[in-house]
């Protein structure tokens, strides 16, 4: 099976890779590019642990083919902090202890970033529905919602 040559941008960097036509973007990120921050919790788009942003759209990278990244802008958890300066969402997740095991955290952070980009001042209900595509089994979501509320407040200034 011949590989597909893909030229794309990931976290602002130009990246080229060869992938199989049936290979998902998640497999490319994790197995070819070493970007293991996106996690596979289900492989069927139900848990959101593999969330990334492609051209300003929140997607499950397990439901996107690697070949579909051609010419696009991909944002992953590895690109969220600027050097050693954490994104406010990352900082507030730490301060609120919005993670226990942490496996869902990269997906939640990406989904929350996308949510706040579209709605900088969400209500609690809007946060809850905005993050309903991401599963967390440890926290009961309470501290995640509070962390997003707090981060939104900081980001609004």
């Amino acid at each position, binding site marked *: 099976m011949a590989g597909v040559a893909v030229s794309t941008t990931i976290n602002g960097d130009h990246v080229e890779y060869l992938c*199989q036509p049936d290979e998902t973007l998640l497999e490319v990120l*994790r197995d070819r590019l070493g*970007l*293991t*921050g*996106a*996690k*596979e*919790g*289900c*492989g*069927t788009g*139900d*848990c959101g*642990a593999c969330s990334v942003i492609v051209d300003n759209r929140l997607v499950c990278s397990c439901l996107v083919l690697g070949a579909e990244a051609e010419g696009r802008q991909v944002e*992953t*958890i*590895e690109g*969220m*902090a600027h050097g050693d300066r*954490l994104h406010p969402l*990352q900082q507030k*997740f*730490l*301060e*609120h*202890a919005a*993670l*226990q*095991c*942490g*496996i*869902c*955290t*990269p997906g939640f*952070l990406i989904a929350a970033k996308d949510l706040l980009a579209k709605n900088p001042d969400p209500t*609690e*209900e809007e*946060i*809850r*529905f905005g*993050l*309903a*595509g*991401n*599963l*967390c*089994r*440890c*926290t*009961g*979501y*309470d*501290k*995640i*919602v509070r962390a997003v509320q707090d981060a939104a407040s900081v980001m609004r200034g």
Partner: protein
Amino acid sequence: MNFDPRLTNRSFTSVGTRPIRPDGIDKVTGRARYGADFNMAGQLVGRVLRSPHAHAVIRGIDTAKAEALPGVKAVITAADLPDLTNGDGALYDILDNCIARKKALYDGHAVAAVAAIDARTARQALKLIEVDYEVLPHVTDVDEAFQHGAPLINEAIFTEGLEEKPVKPSNVHKRTQYGHGDIHKGFSEADFVIERSFRTEQTHQGYIEPHACVASVSSDGMAELWVCTQGPFVYRQHCAQLLGMEASKLRVTSSEIGGGFGGKTHVWAEPVALALSRKAGRPVKLVMTRDEVFRASGPTSATSIDIKIGARKDGTITAAEATLRYSCGPYAGMWAEVGAMTAFACYRLDNVRTVGFEVLVNRPKTAAYRAPSAPMAAFAVESTIDELAGKVGMDAVDFRIKNAAQEGTRASYGPVYGPIGIGPTLEAVKNHPHMQAPLKKNQGRGMACGFWFNFGGQTCVDLNIGMDGSVSLAVGTVDVGGSRASLSLVAAEELGIDYAQVKAIVADTSSLGYNDMTDGSRGTFSSSMATISAARNAIKVLRERAAQMWDIPADDVVWEKGHALAKGEKYGNLSPLSLKEIAAQSGTTGGPIAGHSELVADGAGVSFATHICDIEVDPETGATRVLRYTVVQDAGKAVHPTYVEGQYQGGAAQGIGWALNEEYIYGKDGRLQNAGFLDYRIPVCSDLPMIDTQILEIPNPNHPYGIRGVGETSIVPPLAAIANAVSNAVGVRMTHIPMSPPRILAALEASTSAQKSESIFGKHDA
């Protein structure tokens, strides 16, 4: 009640604060490495072939075509994992569950495995393996399996625990009994008796991270296993025994763990990965799919429970009885026994009897799930208690307070309680503003209590003080939710230094002595006990070194607030020496400074919680929404209160999912029909309200800081609390968990038609 002055007047500096966890940055930046994030040079991809049948004899397996496929490096069957269990029945069951030997015992049971150069080749190879099955009749329902004449899962099972050994085999592996007093006398003294039967369906822990490992066996017999596990030492022991290795030649490193809740206390595919690596001569990475996690790791029991409780008019319970049937999967377990032990643990009872039956079914092997077996028993008991309170005419909280266990009460499972938190949690609930909040139409409020034993177990830590005065704490209990933070706080507290000066890590099995798993709510309880002990040993060395630096007797040196002080006026000219100053001189005063501790952490204090919830039922759809939820639980002493709250909230959320929605659904063909997160729906963010918490601190007298485990108890009350709330909202006693919309609608319809027939015949229920 906060801190009980009878037991301690200690004030804390670090313990009780809420710093950021040491593993936090890695987890918010994607750097933390979980089970599937580790890779080795030359690694192969492992995949497992699983039975599509619930029950079938494996007549033969032909692997020739798979082996001939280019890129396939190893194919294994049970023959590659020979039976080395030496008559150890429990270990044999583990082996048989890892890869079926004679029969496939459930849909998803592993029968063969391959290692290939990539996932595509491995998947192709699985399709080329030919298994000759003889399909047998199966049974997946706990009540059907319990009946005589049900398809037999294991013909060597003759029910244990009966007065006479039965003449015929059955699916009931064991009967156990707990209790004291005379229940017949007790029931004869009762003015009111309630008898009810309950059912709960099977649920999965639902950790977001599937099981994953990388196994590497070298030709010299040395091996490495990188794996997400709650217990690397137990995994090492089981894998080494099953593969015929010495434990010290297998180094197990626990990765960050993406949730376990009991499901990662058992080996599943790890021995298979090691056997593949041994055969292929290369490292093998084996990651389960979500489908495999549901079908072939360990969910909790499905249950069928009968309860009978009697009380006098004044509200005193006179007798209580429970019969509990718990499914174990196809292997022996002790799940009903634990249910029988916990069922009435919240109450002060003169006459009590609980009987448990372990029932084999053609479902995956039952594994621990957070306070295993307790939530189902609590659902049945607390539902009946609520109904009985109503019969007596007492408030549900007051009725429980009147009958609550106290210090000195003999528990229904045997021991006599020390200071315990059931009474205080009930009093806190009684006075909680949540109990007074108004309710609207179709809304209901429920409350319920829960108990968990907690566990201590074998534990050791190393505490090493660097020459710069920083402290490395190596622990052997896997951090499932912030314990590196809490144990660093404990080390800082005992040494009298800043939290930031301590760095805790989870050590691998070759770097530290044996530790039991992180289970039984033992992580912070037991490792903090060992940390305190290790810190005290280090302080002894620090005092000796200071004495040496001052050239005075060590007995004249005390340790206070992170400094050595020379006591007595004659030493007035000696300034205190900080830990950092003593550490800096360690190279010339006797070498590295460390404290070690190896102990059995006895005295895990029992744990109690009481929960309150408000729900609203949509009478047209039967859908239930949780409006408000409050957890009140005793922590002994909350080391990092934010993470204690997190445990309370997380357990409650899992219980809410269990109560309302989650269940394994099997078809008539014995196959699991909802092996994915779309159809096995755990609560999402929009399903839940904020979960309020109240931490009580009734110190555990057996721990130097009063700490109790907090991880599990919070999943025990929700099933009952929500069932009571739903029953109060719709006026029908709900007896089947989960209370999914169709079940609630059916209950409503049954109630409506019963009311109609009552009005026709003019009946009035007393």
